[in-house]
Each structure stands twice: as structure tokens, then as C-alpha cells.
């Protein structure tokens, strides 16, 4: 059983992690059709809430039901964060078991501090608080908050913040080093894989904390902070199949307790806390008396009963907290716990709401369950807000940061549909950030306000959304970004280019440029004659209803510090129109066509 767990767990971990190290975007279409991140518990629930139908929610349903049958198997078999913890723990205790390091200082240190676990009472106040926090975060649409406790999102933050940039930069470095010797076998990756320092720092922090916790106390996170663990743990208490200790065979040697990374086995009383057991089967594999089995317990009805009894007795004795565990597993939550858990949450929510209202962002979401409240009144394309400084906040997204042009607004990834939908479903797992071919999706730090922490936005400073790519729409497990086929994505309008002639080099310097015009993939920028006709200068003009907001023009505009053309992100994404000849602002007069340029005459195909 233990080996099955290890193999399946590592396989799932490998499959999901593959997406974070796919720096050359080589994963086939079939991979994304059966995307392994679909197996994630909370993301699949969010996907259901995002309106993707019950099938998208299979993971939530399956693993909930499975918890009633076989306990928290999800935590050891499917949860990448849990599996990562097991891996980190393995690394931490490696020196204590390794042949060479065993007797070194490091080996002794590791053996003393990490190698064995002890039974610890359940921390039910904490568990239920965080579960409640998760429920409230989902209800009120503060999913970025959820993303800081949800295991998959935390795992994603580590992978997207450390592993992906490291892999991409490593490949870049290797490729460039080899290219010095004219070997071009390892190509550099597209775009700049760097993530904001804060995002990297957060990832390091999570990883360090996780490593320490898993080395010292195994699955500490899973039984204190993890809302999925708390929820499944509640169900697992009633599960059919359980780890059962044969009390007649058990001699209370304590080996299982030491091996238990969930710290849920009390060898002295020969009992096990099922709400915390993660089905890792380490205990059974190590038991010298074969006293531990994973079974229904029908065969040993009597002993099972006594087991339950003794559990009740001992847990009552063990500590006050364990008594609360019994209580809180009942129908209601203790009054004290409830208020205790509510307080920090209220503070957090208050802070977030305050910040958000300042950004003019989701003011209504905080007032009540504002899910799917389509602010902005739909459509919203091509309203041609000419006056730059007065931007209608109900149509456009928030202002990105102080350094940007005042009339620029954030752009959401294509498929986000609306700011409300995106903000309420994105947990900031960073998988789209890793998937972005142009590597322009970057996690927001304060760009969306506090409540949008780690949710990605389009950063056109070092690239633009590629016309030939729809990677981010393929990977999102939570429904924050809806899948768009390539043709759909190509007409999805995420923003509108706003051109400011007073900044353009054609006007300021009187020289040709058209960098924006040449990069526009949809002919939304037309070059129209400007100034003295003799100079034959052309200046851009934007067809706003044609523009899809890909940011190519903004990226390539040579003017600094403020670009002459910037993208103003839409609060509700729309559909762009296709360019056709009737849309032309400027039609060259016929006499322009008949030039004096020498053209071919007679049978000679050459004009010269």
C-alpha cells in the first residue's frame, strides 16, 4: 500500500509539475485535454462556481466521496503540496539514514530533530478557523486570500515563483554559454522569465516554512492550516476503510507513532485520529508485528467498538484541546472558537476592502455575495474615451501603478471574461504565469489592490500577448480564465490601445516610426498622413473596435518614459470586430496611385 501511494503520488506530482517546467511549451494538446490540475480539490470547486458545470467539479465530488470510503487519500495521492512536503521531509531526514552522512554532525542533527515524530493533539480551533476562512473567502470572492491557504495554490506559488524561473533562466544560461562555442542545441526561452521580487520572496518564504515544518512535524500544514485537510478530515472520521490497529497484536512499541508524519497515532493508547490521518500507510509498512491494517473493520466488530470507546476515553484524558476536537466535529462549532476565528478574518477582510475601495475595485463584492455581478454593463467596446485623465472606472480595470501613463489600465489575460469573474476565481496559483509563452503574465503585488495579491496581469513592458498563443486559457484549473480556442482568442478584446499624438515621435521629431502599426496583428492601427504632405509623414490612428488589446503597440513604442500608445484594459472583455476596407480612416486619392514611378511597359517585365 505504501509503495502504491509513493508511486501514484510521485506520478501525479510529476504530471502536474511538468506544466511548471515546460519552458519550451512542448506539452501536447492531449495533455491539456486531460489536464492533471483538474484533479485539484478547491480549484475544481471554484470552477463549478465559475459556471463550468458539474463535470468540471469532479475532483471535489470524487475526493469528498472517497474521503467517506477511504479517508484522506487525496492528501497523499493527489495533492501536489502534500507530496512536496513528503519529498522535502525525505530530503531533510536523508542525512540521518544515508550510509556516509549517518555519523556526521549533520546526520546526527537530522536524526535528533527530524527523524522521528511524536503524537500531537489536534489543533481544532485553528483547523476550523481556516476552513471557515476558506468558505468565507469563496463566498465573498476573496480568492487571492484563499490562494494563500489552499494547498494547490501554495504549491503553484512555489513552482511558479522559483522552479519555473529557475528552469528557464538555467536553460538560457546554458544555451548562451554553449552558443559561445557555436553550439546552438539548447535554445534560449522566449521572453523574460523573471517574476517580481515579491513573488519570488513569497515563494522562498513558503518553501522555507514548508521545509522546516515538514522536517520538524511532517504534515503540520495539512492538519493546521489546510482547509482541504480540515474538510476531508471531517469526512474521513466516518470513512469505511481506515487504518486500524489490532490491539491484541500491538505492543505499543511506538514505531508507527515515530513514522507518522501526520502525528496522529498515539501508540500508548493504540489509537489513531482519523481526521488527521493522510493515508500514507507508513505506519503499516513499518509495523514489526503487522498489527496495522487498512480495512473496513467489519471482521473485528468488537475490537473496533472498543477502539472507539478507548479513543473517546483517551482523547478526553489527553488534553483539553482533544476534547474540543470531539465537540467541534459535532454539528456545531463552539461559540468561543467561532468568535476567535472570526476576529482575524474580519480584520483581514476589512483591510482588503478598504484598500479595494480605494482602487475602485469590487466595492460591491465585499458587501455581499456578489458573485458574477456583471459590473460595467456589458459591451464596453470602442466607447472612445477621448479625454485621457477621466477614465470611466466602470468600464475599465484599475490603474496599474504610479510610473505608468495616467490613462493606462491593467489588462486581464484573455478568457478572464470580466474583472469580477477573474478576481473571484483566481487563487494566484501561477500556472498561467508559467504557461505564458511571451512571459508577460506576471503576478500582481499591489496592482489589483490588496485582494488581488498574486493574481496575474498582463505586463507589456517586456513583451506582448502573442497572436498565435492561447496557453493561459488552456491551463487555468479554477475557471478564472476560460478556455478559448485560438480563433476565439484572436477576437477576444481585452483592452483598447489609446494613442496620444503629443508623445509620438512622428509629431515630436517629425520622423517616421510606425513601430506600433507594423506590430499590430489585426490592422487596428492605421497610418494616416500627418502634417506637411511634402514630408510624407504618417501618424497612427487606432480603430478601437478592431483593437484586441494585445499590447504589441505598447511594447514596441520607442517613446519613454511614457509610451505614446498604451493599452487600457477592459473590465468586461468583449469581442473585437474584423478590419475591412470600409473602416479606413484615410483612403489615398487616386492621383496618388498614378505616380510617375517607372512601371513596366510592353513585353519587358522589368521597369528598369
Amino acid at each position, binding site marked *: 500500500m505504501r509503495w502504491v501511494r509513493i508511486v501514484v503520488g510521485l506520478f501525479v506530482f510529476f504530471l502536474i509539475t511538468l506544466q511548471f517546467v515546460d519552458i*519550451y511549451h512542448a506539452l501536447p494538446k492531449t495533455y491539456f485535454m486531460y489536464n492533471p490540475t483538474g484533479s485539484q480539490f478547491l480549484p475544481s470547486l471554484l470552477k463549478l462556481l465559475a459556471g463550468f458545470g458539474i463535470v468540471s467539479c469532479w475532483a471535489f465530488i470524487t475526493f469528498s466521496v472517497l474521503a467517506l470510503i477511504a479517508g484522506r487519500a487525496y492528501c497523499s495521492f493527489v495533492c501536489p503540496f502534500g507530496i512536496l512536503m513528503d519529498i522535502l521531509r525525505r530530503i531533510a531526514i536523508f542525512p540521518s539514514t544515508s550510509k556516509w552522512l549517518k555519523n556526521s554532525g549533520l546526520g546526527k542533527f537530522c536524526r535528533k530533530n527530524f527523524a522521528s515524530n511524536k503524537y500531537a493533539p489536534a489543533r481544532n480551533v485553528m483547523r476550523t478557523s481556516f476552513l471557515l476562512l476558506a468558505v468565507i473567502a469563496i463566498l465573498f470572492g476573496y480568492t487571492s486570500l484563499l490562494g494563500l491557504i489552499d494547498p494547490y495554490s501554495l504549491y503553484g506559488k512555489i513552482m511558479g515563483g522559483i522552479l519555473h524561473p529557475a528552469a528557464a533562466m538555467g536553460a*538560457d544560461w546554458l*544555451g*548562451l554559454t554553449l*552558443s559561445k562555442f*557555436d553550439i*546552438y542545441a539548447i*535554445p*534560449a526561452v*522566449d*521572453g523574460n522569465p523573471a517574476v517580481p521580487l515579491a513573488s519570488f520572496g513569497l515563494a522562498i518564504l513558503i518553501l522555507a516554512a514548508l521545509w522546516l515544518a515538514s522536517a520538524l512535524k511532517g504534515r503540520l500544514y495539512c492538519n493546521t492550516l489546510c482547509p482541504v485537510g480540515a474538510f476531508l478530515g471531517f469526512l474521513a472520521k466516518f470513512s469505511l476503510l481506515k487504518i486500524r490497529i489490532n490491539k491484541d497484536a500491538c505492543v505499543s512499541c511506538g514505531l508507527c507513532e515515530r513514522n507518522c508524519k501526520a502525528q496522529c497515532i498515539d501508540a500508548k493508547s493504540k489509537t489513531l485520529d482519523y481526521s488527521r490521518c493522510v493515508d500514507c500507510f507508513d505506519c503499516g509498512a513499518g509495523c514489526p508485528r503487522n498489527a496495522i491494517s487498512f480495512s473496513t473493520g467489519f471482521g473485528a466488530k468488537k475490537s473496533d467498538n472498543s477502539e472507539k470507546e478507548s479513543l473517546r476515553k483517551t482523547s478526553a484524558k489527553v488534553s483539553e484541546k482533544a476534547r474540543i476536537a470531539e465537540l467541534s466535529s459535532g454539528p456545531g462549532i463552539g461559540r468561543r472558537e467561532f468568535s476567535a476565528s472570526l476576529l482575524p478574518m474580519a480584520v483581514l477582510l476589512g483591510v482588503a476592502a478598504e484598500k479595494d475601495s480605494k482602487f475602485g475595485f469590487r466595492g460591491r463584492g465585499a458587501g455581499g455575495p456578489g458573485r458574477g455581478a456583471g459590473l460595467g454593463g456589458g459591451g464596453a467596446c470602442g466607447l472612445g474615451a477621448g479625454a485621457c485623465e477621466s477614465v470611466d472606472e466602470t468600464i475599465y480595470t484599475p490603474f496599474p501603478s504610479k510610473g505608468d501613463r495616467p490613462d493606462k489600465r491593467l489588462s486581464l489575460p484573455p478568457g478572464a471574461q470580466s474583472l469580477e469573474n477573474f478576481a473571484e476565481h483566481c487563487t494566484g496559483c501561477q500556472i498561467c504565469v508559467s504557461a505564458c*509563452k*511571451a*512571459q*508577460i503574465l506576471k503576478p500582481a503585488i499591489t496592482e489589483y489592490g490588496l485582494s488581488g495579491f498574486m493574481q496575474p496581469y498582463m505586463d507589456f513592458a*517586456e*513583451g*506582448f500577448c*502573442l*497572436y*498565435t*498563443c492561447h496557453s493561459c486559457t488552456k491551463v487555468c484549473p479554477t475557471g478564472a480564465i476560460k478556455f478559448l480556442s485560438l480563433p476565439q482568442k484572436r477576437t477576444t478584446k481585452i483592452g483598447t490601445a489609446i494613442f496620444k499624438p503629443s508623445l509620438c*515621435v512622428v509629431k515630436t*521629431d517629425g*520622423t*517616421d*516610426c*510606425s*513601430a506600433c*502599426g*507594423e*506590430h*499590430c*496583428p489585426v*490592422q487596428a*492601427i492605421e*497610418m494616416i498622413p500627418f502634417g506637411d504632405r511634402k514630408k*510624407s509623414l*504618417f501618424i497612427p490612428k487606432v480603430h478601437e473596435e478592431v483593437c484586441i488589446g494585445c499590447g*504589441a503597440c505598447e511594447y*514596441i*513604442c*520607442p*517613446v519613454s518614459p511614457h509610451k505614446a500608445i498604451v493599452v487600457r484594459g477592459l473590465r468586461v472583455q468583449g469581442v473585437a470586430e474584423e*478590419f475591412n476596407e470600409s473602416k479606413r480612416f484615410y483612403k*489615398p486619392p487616386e492621383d*496618388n*496611385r498614378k*505616380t*510617375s*514611378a*517607372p*512601371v*513596366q511597359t510592353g513585353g*519587358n*517585365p*522589368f*521597369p*528598369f
Partner: protein
Amino acid sequence: MKRRDFISTVGAAAAALPFGNSALAAAAQSSETPDLVALYGGTAVEMFERGIAEIGGMNRFVKKGQTVVLKPNIGWDRGPDYGANTDPDLVGRITKACYDSGAKKVFCFDHTCGNDWAERYKVSGIRAAVEAAGGEMVPGNSIEMYVEQNIPRGVSLKKALVHKLAVDPDVFINIPVLKHHSGAKITCALKNYMGCIWDRQWWHKNNMPQCIADYATYQKTTLTIVDAYRVMLDFGPRGKSPELSPVSKYQIISTDIVAADAAAIQIFATVASQIGKGIPWKLSDIKYMKPAEDLGVGTTDLSKLKVKRISVA
């Protein structure tokens, strides 16, 4: 002339750039080898095969053991039928011709117009064509690949980060595609050199036509092969649909890059007039031509050169 003398002459010519083009031509030509061959009527590969033979064969330009750098236009994520990038078969055929002349290695690169360079190498078909012929595609997407170079004769552009392959190559073959350009009106051989450098935005900001001419004073060019098999007449340089890039069946092979552009501009006007799309720009409309001629990169006056016109049919 002895072979050794010839090689040293070529070396001297290369050192004496930008006068290199004319000096090279003078040294290599006996009497009747043309400076510019204009072709019409075949596929890009057919016209190249005929044209290169007329201009003295590839081994006039590529010597045994030399490293050849090809600079096609691979700017855009468009298939060959858009005419936005150089014809892949042509680039492949040129790669093969270089190897046939004894080249040690043929490299091919472009600084693509976007951050998905690998995709553009692929979609254009050029990667496949070059690699099939044994050439090597070199990325141009990292600043690490670029070396700062002085451009002593530049007027606006004095310094540039130049792709390491374009710095002092043995043989450098420019393979532009002729097409409309929203900023420069027409883009061809001279403008194609914007893919050799890192910071194009600086050019856009600082009098782009002058920068284009300035850079040409620096870049060694052994041969210019203009692909005008398809000519994109409007919505360039990226293109809107393949219908706007009619099959026009032209090609120019020239030792003078400015003359190649001058001829190409006239071909563009011819095609635009015939098809009735786009604007048939005059030579004087294309703003980088006069600075290039003034800087002595080449001549726009085709009557000064030995021009050979060939209809391949």
C-alpha cells in the same frame, strides 16, 4: 589573377568596407559579369539558380572553408503565403549553394519582431528549410548574443548592439523579402538589416531612415538576394491576408545593396500598379534611399551598373 591574390583582394575589400562592394566587384569581375541580375517568371528557387549562375556562380562569393551567414527576413509569425518572411525554399536553396561552394558552416538568423522567435523560425518554414540543407539556425532573442559596435560613418547611429554573427563575417548574404511597410513604406534589403541589431526602438526614436542608412555603412554585405516572388502590397510588414501578397515572380541578385533596393522599389510600383492595390511609391518617397546613397553605400542609379535582365520561363 592567381587564386591567392584573389583571396587577399577579397580580404582587403572586406577590410575597406563600405567600399567593399564595388572593390570586390571590380576585383572579381573579368569584364562581363553583371553587378545586378534581375529575374522574372519562375519560382524563387528557379530564379535563384539561374541568377546566381549569371552573376558568376556562388563560388564567386563563397570560398572553401568559409563561414557563411544568411540574413533572411523571419520577422513575423506568418506562413510563407503571406510573403511576410523570405521564401523558405529560397533560403534552403541558398544554404545548399553555399555548401556546394565549399562553405564550412552556414548560419542563419534574424532578430524577430516579437518574443516568440522559435515560433517564427518554425512558422516561416525557414528553420526546416535551412536545417534540411545542413545549415544552422541561430537565435537572436537574447541581448547576450549582441556585441556593441561602433559605426564610424553613421550620422544618427554611432553605436549599435550587433548580432555576433553579423560582426565581421566571412560571407554575409542578405536575403530580404520585398513588401509594403507601414513605417518605411517599402521594406527590402537595407531595412532588413534592422534584424541584425538589438535595439530597434532606438532607431524608431532617432530618425529611422537615417539609422537604416547609417547601419548599412557598417554591415559587410557580400551579396543581396531580394525575394520578390510574392510582394506584399498593403498592411505590411506583417500582412493581413495572402491575397494582398500576389505571386509576382521577381528576384534580384546584386552585389550592390542600394541598387538592389532601387530596383526592388520599381518592381513594387509595377506590381502595385498591375494589381491595383497598395501605393506605387517612387524612389524619392523611400526616405532611407538618399541617405544610403549619400553615405556611399551604393548607388540608386542602375545605369551606372552592369544590369542583366532575365525572364525565366
